[in-house]
């Protein structure tokens, strides 16, 4: 007989929604036993607790708002008739939703790792002493299950294979979650110190979802889908809307803000400061400038600033003019300071326009027979274009 199911779904508005599904005789015919609510409460509690730590980390000198716990809470949205399908959602109060989402991701990742026998993800929001306590609380998830009952835990809504929590699988997970040797201090996996990092950074991709209610969006990048918030800067909403489309058809867009990295990969924009459409000509140099726009911080042997939009835009204007004049196309290079170097170099001489990150043009030429090069600076792009085109015409 197929076991009746109760299915719990996370808020479907979240781009990375999640399902939890309970199976077993006791959930038959749409019944939701009271003791199964404890499982939901446990899940809610660990998410809430982690969200509190996240909030405190961002507000070290402030008291937790009185409404924090009330607003970071689960609700059962729906129990579908006949199948005991329960729709479960975190309330989406914009004021704390980013902490809630961060915490939920960390809880989900810990559950998934524990049941896969994989190293548990680090919990950088928690002080080291609280990590073991948090994991032990998470170990209680599924404690009400009996034989022939299970919780199917969907970390992502599109997962076809959920994390299966049963009496048997919990045994393995408990060994992962509960520190059995109290002589060993709780610790994160090797290398965890650099797992989470925040810095001002830009990412290139296509905006595929915008949720104005929770001030969130999603951008499809070369690293996968990255979510972001713009709560601190709602002025970018119109910019986000203007570039919103599918991953196949949307315009290439560069988003800049405080980006969190997890395991070295971009994870979330904690804050968003700029949304810029990336539009370069369909030429070899246009493709090159597009590549430059995607360089991450540290691209030059561990250093190297991201290439500024000001310099990319100026480079495009200059290269278009050079091409239109029928001049030989130069070499185009990113500079570690965040600018663009446009350079004609032959064995008889060097001629270059270096565009600094703030848009200043450095004009330079040196004939090989000369000892010294001729150098000047300008902020006038017309002058830079004249220099670039005249010298090689």
């Amino acid at each position: 007989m197929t076991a009746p199911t109760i299915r719990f779904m996370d808020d479907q508005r979240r781009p990375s929604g999640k399902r939890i599904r309970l199976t077993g005789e006791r959930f038959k015919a749409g019944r939701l036993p009271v003791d199964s609510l404890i499982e939901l409460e446990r899940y809610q509690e660990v998410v809430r607790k982690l969200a509190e730590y996240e909030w405190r980390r961002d507000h070290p000198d402030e008291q937790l708002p009185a409404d924090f716990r009330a607003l970071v809470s689960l609700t059962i949205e729906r129990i579908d008739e006949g199948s005991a399908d329960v729709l479960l959602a975190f309330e989406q109060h914009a004021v704390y939703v980013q902490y809630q989402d961060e915490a939920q991701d960390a809880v989900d990742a810990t559950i998934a790792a524990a049941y896969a026998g994989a190293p548990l993800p680090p919990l950088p929001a928690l002080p080291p002493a609280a990590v073991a306590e948090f994991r032990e609380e998470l170990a209680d998830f599924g404690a009400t299950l009996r034989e022939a009952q299970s919780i199917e835990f969907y970390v992502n809504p599109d997962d076809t294979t959920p994390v299966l929590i049963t009496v048997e699988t919990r045994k393995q997970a408990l060994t992962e979650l509960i520190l059995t040797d109290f002589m060993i201090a709780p610790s994160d996996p090797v290398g965890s110190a650099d797992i989470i990092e925040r810095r001002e950074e830009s990412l290139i991709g296509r905006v595929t979802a915008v949720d104005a209610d929770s001030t969130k969006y999603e951008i499809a990048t070369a690293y996968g889908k990255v979510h972001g918030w713009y709560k601190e800067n709602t002025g970018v909403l119109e910019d986000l809307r203007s570039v919103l489309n599918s991953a196949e058809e949307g315009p290439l867009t560069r988003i800049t803000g405080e980006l969190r990295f997890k395991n070295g990969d971009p994870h979330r924009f904690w804050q968003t400061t700029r949304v810029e459409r990336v539009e370069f000509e369909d030429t070899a140099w246009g493709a090159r400038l597009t590549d430059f726009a995607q360089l991450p911080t540290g691209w030059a042997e561990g250093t190297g600033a991201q290439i500024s939009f000001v310099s990319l835009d100026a480079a495009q204007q200059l290269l278009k003019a050079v091409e239109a004049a029928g001049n030989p196309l130069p070499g185009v290079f990113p500079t570690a300071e965040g600018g663009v170097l446009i350079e004609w170099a032959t064995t008889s001489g060097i001629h270059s326009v270096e565009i600094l990150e703030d848009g200043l043009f450095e004009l330079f030429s040196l004939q090989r027979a000369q000892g010294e090069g001729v150098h000047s600076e300008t902020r006038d792009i017309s002058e830079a274009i004249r220099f670039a085109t005249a010298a090689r015409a």
Partner: protein
Amino acid sequence: MTTVDLELREDESLMSDADELIYRQITAHMMDGNQIATTAFGPMPADRDMPSFSRSRLVEPQDARDWHTRNLPRSPSLAVWALAVGEVIEAERYVIDDSAVTLDANSKRAPGHCFVDYRGLSRPERKTLRSQLWFRAVERGEIPTNATLGDGEMFAVAPS
């Protein structure tokens, strides 16, 4: 050019054999097709005006390339180009061998490490110097080496 103020730290030495080659590793962002940027022969910000080269008396070009690629895997070396010490001196600068300088416990340095000294130069002077070095390196041409083999590879795989 400015007056040369030679600064040697402990265990550093001035390279004086004008014929000795010093190898420079060329990475992807220094190239546009077949053209090499003049910046390839100048310092990055992290170099603190002391761009790295390797002494030909102390290391083979292939070994220098392999060391770079294995230790800086995000910026693998795609080619090796070279200058002669005398060419740097003709450009009114000098090359300093710092391969014997004691390293911090967490630091690493390429075998046979040396650097062209850009310290104290203005931006125009740097551009002049790196351009003059570019002329010499391009005139000499690429130093033949092979792509660095990965662990367990018997032959190099062309990058896709």
